């Protein structure tokens, strides 16, 4: 990694949104042949910096130099033409088009005026193979794939061009270990070819594994630029959150929660052979009051679909479900909510956010829906609840009137979590609640979850990180190929145990 001239040199970048100074005089350099991690808490300004570089936002102040030339891209297209290829934080593809098209949109190979569809398919397959995604049918519609797969396709799209700069904004938040490794090996190959790579992630292991250099932001300001080798992990964390190390030690401390005695617990929800045609089957689980049930399984194994059945978002057509001792058919989310069940979806953009409404309105939504339209939650209660949760979950900016779409990804997630906590459910189903959340907030949320369980709430917890599942859950239900294969009480279960179950039992 030579100190040659940077491909990208941003100086004194400032961007203000109404009410927020998202970036304040930030400098940033990116050299060819390096993997550069951009780090910071939720809302630190990482995504904004990327968008400033790629022409999505106009900068208020500062200069951007790309390949030695002053640039101010007016559109992402111009940035792309200048050799900057970007995967933005939210999946930004077209759900109505096929996978191959999403990969090659705008640069389809042509032949005699028309698109050469055979070549489109070939090129798409090539890049999918590179990411070991050969099993995905390039002709399938994007929206038929889970968020994780869509994320991978977005990455495939970015890698499909011969770019000078590759920007990846939280590409790994929904990927599994294999895919992360696969992605990294491609990243390394590209780096060795001299591509400059900008990488954003909240997984510090990954940052240390793949990056050569890092830039830390805090509250829109530059904290510093470091060589990865020079900055130990704890040092990095304290730079990110601006606190000293002992405060962190406390954060890292694992929770020790009194596990309620199995015998004395009352089952809140029981599913027997629950299933739905074309979706999952054989879901037999019991969630007791005060218990955390973890759903483990591979990507696409049907965890999300199980959660949706339990919440009535999809209607079960097999098996039996009983809640609080009586048999119920959940036809709609409403009927689940009326039985004190809550569900926070993994797909926050499409299934969570009401983007044009304020943080307060979003927070209050589920509670309001429960009360019906006639009985409005009084404004004072709304304000008080909003303030309370903005404080407990450290939602930034701490402005209840901000539109939720203007919040950073992690902060949006917190608002959605708060939406359900306000309803004080008896069973809370959390699908990937910690995705895209910075390490401080993540620990906070984990604490919160076990705190809630201690208070008697039942929780169904889904996470792509098995460690997290193991750490929090009292019982682990394992899914494989969209049916349930095992139900393991978590008394000293290890990752290997779970892996064995997944690998072992025949399909």
């Amino acid at each position, binding site marked *: 990694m030579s100190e040659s001239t940077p491909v990208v040199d941003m100086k004194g970048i400032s961007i203000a949104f109404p009410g927020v100074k998202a970036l304040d005089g930030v400098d940033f350099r990116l050299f060819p042949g390096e993997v550069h991690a951009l780090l910071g808490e939720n809302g630190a300004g990482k995504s904004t910096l990327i968008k400033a570089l790629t022409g*999505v936002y*106009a900068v208020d102040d500062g200069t951007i130099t790309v390949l030695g030339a002053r640039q101010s891209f007016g559109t992402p297209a111009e940035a792309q033409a200048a050799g900057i290829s970007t995967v933005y934080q939210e999946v930004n593809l077209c759900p109505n088009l096929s996978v191959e098209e999403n990969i090659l949109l705008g640069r389809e190979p042509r032949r005699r005026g028309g698109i050469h569809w055979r070549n489109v398919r070939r090129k798409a397959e090539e890049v999918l193979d590179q990411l070991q995604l050969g099993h995905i049918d390039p002709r399938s519609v994007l929206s038929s794939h889970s968020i994780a797969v869509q994320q991978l396709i977005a990455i495939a799209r970015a890698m499909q061009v011969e770019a000078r700069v590759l920007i990846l904004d939280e590409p790994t938040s929904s990927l599994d270990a294999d895919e992360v490794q696969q992605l990294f090996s491609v990243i390394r190959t590209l780096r060795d070819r001299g591509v400059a790579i900008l990488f954003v992630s909240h997984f510090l292991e990954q940052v240390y594994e793949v990056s050569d250099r890092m830039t830390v932001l805090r509250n829109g300001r530059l904290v510093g630029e470091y060589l990865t080798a020079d900055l130990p992990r704890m040092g990095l964390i304290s730079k990110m959150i601006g606190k000293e190390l002992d405060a962190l030690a406390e954060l890292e401390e694992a929770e020790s929660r009194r596990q309620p005695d199995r015998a004395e617990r009352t089952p809140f929800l029981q599913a027997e052979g629950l299933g739905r045609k074309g979706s999952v089957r054989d879901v037999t689980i019991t969630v007791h009051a005060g218990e955390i049930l973890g759903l483990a399984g591979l990507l696409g194994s049907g965890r999300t679909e199980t959660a949706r059945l339990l919440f009535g*978002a999809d209607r079960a057509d097999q098996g039996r479900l009983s809640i609080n001792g009586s048999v119920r058919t959940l036809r709609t989310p409403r009927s689940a909510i009326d039985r004190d069940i809550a569900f926070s979806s993994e797909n926050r953009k*499409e299934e*969570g956010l009401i983007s044009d409404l304020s943080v307060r309105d979003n927070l209050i*939504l589920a509670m309001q829906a429960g009360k019906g339209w006639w009985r*409005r*939650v009084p404004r004072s209660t709304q304000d008080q609840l909003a303030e309370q949760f903005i404080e407990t979950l450290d939602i930034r900016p701490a402005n209840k009137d901000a539109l939720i779409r203007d919040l950073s990804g992690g902060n949006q997630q917190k608002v959605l979590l708060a939406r359900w906590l306000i309803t004080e459910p008896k069973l809370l189903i959390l699908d990937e609640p910690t995705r895209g959340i910075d390490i401080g907030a993540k620990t906070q949320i984990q604490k919160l979850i076990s705190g809630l369980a201690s208070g008697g709430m039942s929780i169904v917890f889904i996470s792509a990180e098995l460690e997290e599942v193991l750490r929090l859950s009292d019982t682990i239900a394992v899914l494989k190929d969209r049916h349930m294969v095992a139900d393991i009480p978590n008394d000293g279960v290890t990752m290997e145990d779970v892996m064995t179950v997944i690998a072992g039992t025949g399909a």
Partner: protein
Amino acid sequence: MSALLRHRLTWPVLALVLLLLLNQLFRADFLSVRIQDGHLYGSLIDILRNGAPTILIALGMTLVIASRGIDLSVGAVAAIAGAISCMYIYSSPDPSSWQTAAMGVTIAVVAGLALGLWNGFLVSVIGIQPIIATLVLMTAGRGLAQLVTDGQIISVSNDSYQAIGAGFFLGLPIAILIAAGAFGVAGLLTRRTALGTLIEAVGINPVASRLAGIDARTITWTVYVFSGLCAAVAGLMISSNVTAADANNAGLYIEMDAILAVVIGGTSLAGGRYSLVGTLVGALIIQTLTTTVYTLGVPPEATLVFKALVVIIVCLLQSSRARTLFRQRRRPVTEQSQVKVAI
């Protein structure tokens, strides 16, 4: 000051004022209002009275649009309501008593509610795209109205009935009082209860709203019923104003005027956030525009060109882009709601 300039109602209100001033310029007594026969008389009063049906329909339309829908059938519903009430009064044994009028009005309003129910059913239960669902009634509705009147223009002479559209109370046109009342009720209903927020939520992201436990179906249904109600009352006003039910022409193209009013008022057709006050201003702009054409004596063949130009100018003024174009470039990509579902 800059906050005032940014407010989304500033330009529509300004446009309205400009239009009124333009009229004043051409006719010195345009803005003057005098008392005649115990009630207010003047062009401004005419604008309010003639604008009342549009205001009313636009009110219902605002909520429909906020929920990501559209209601093309309002004109036909207005025609049906007018036809039913006039036919009832016309064929009743005592066509001039207030009881007859009251009964006719009641039947018409019930019919409006039923037609709203029907639209809402097609949209929220069957799941037909609103534009098509309401197109069905738009097409068939005028036929139904003509069926009721047997294709004739039904004249009634009933003072109580005539009062709805042409009468005065405390010197003010009753039509505008009704519209104001409906406006107040709608404002209260949507802002004092949670209805407004829930409609917006359904309009912005129906999937997320459902998962948050909102009964999107009932909400959607409700807005169409409300729209039907507004259209029926507007239809009563229209027919009462000329003391006759004209099944073919009553409320013709009023759906376009209403949508135009809603959009000028700053509500996006993509659903979501809406502004009732904006709609009110929008409807007044449209009515003033019509009156302006008559006042200025714009030749009939140039009338539409004139209307088009005014609409374009109003919208250009109102567009946030036009304002920022003259200032510095500030263009975050508008994060439109990504969820695409059939409206």
